């Protein structure tokens, strides 16, 4: 496993492996019983428009700082054992991985809650922006559901 894998929050151009991220978080504790992951992927359709490509940009340092804040708060508030958050930037094709949140708890209830909260919070406070390319051109997305 590369040294990059050791950080629990990352913003990177390259793809990630869900299995590898889960195995990395399993090493935190032998008492993990439930691991909930959210994987966001590139959808073809957005508001009736056919997307051909996505492009993500972030504010370096601030974005990573926000992800670490989310991770620390999720662990504290939901009493989970650990969490990792990875977001890709740059060009992303339809069907490709965009974002991964892994929430590991002793039991499943808190892992579900922490994971769902974390992705909502990521969208709310993390300086990352999406540009969609359609047949009509390129547009920065200003609101997401």
């Amino acid at each position, binding site marked *: 496993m590369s040294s990059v894998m050791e950080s629990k929050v990352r913003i990177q151009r390259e793809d990630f492996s869900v299995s590898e991220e889960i195995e990395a978080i399993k090493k935190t504790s032998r008492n993990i019983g439930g691991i909930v992951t959210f994987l966001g992927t590139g959808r073809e359709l957005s508001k009736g428009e056919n997307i051909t490509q996505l492009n993500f940009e972030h504010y370096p340092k601030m974005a990573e700082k926000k992800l670490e804040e989310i991770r620390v708060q999720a662990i504290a508030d939901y009493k989970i054992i650990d969490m990792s958050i990875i977001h890709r930037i740059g060009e992303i094709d339809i069907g490709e991985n*965009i974002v991964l949140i892994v929430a590991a708890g002793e039991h499943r209830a808190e892992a579900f809650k922490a994971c769902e909260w974390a992705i909502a919070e990521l*969208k709310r406070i993390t300086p990352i*922006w999406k540009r969609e390319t359609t047949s009509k051109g390129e547009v920065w997305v200003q609101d997401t559901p």
Partner: protein
Amino acid sequence: MIHILYFASLRDIAGKTEETLDPNDAATVRELADFIGKTSPQLGEMIHGKKVMVSVNQDVANLDTPVRDGDEVAFLPPFSGGA
């Protein structure tokens, strides 16, 4: 100098990725917005109208936040990460 960053759609509106400003020209984010409004009235209005978020040294700021020599001020359009 104060280092100013524009991201995503704001970069297209500003027509640039970054610029620097003499700290004598602006003591707060509000005054910095006035300065920006001279060359880009649309951007100045968006900042004053709180249509964009502002950060100073990677912390969320507001119009009254002071800016000093060496600060990094960023203008952030609504976020759209997370798939």
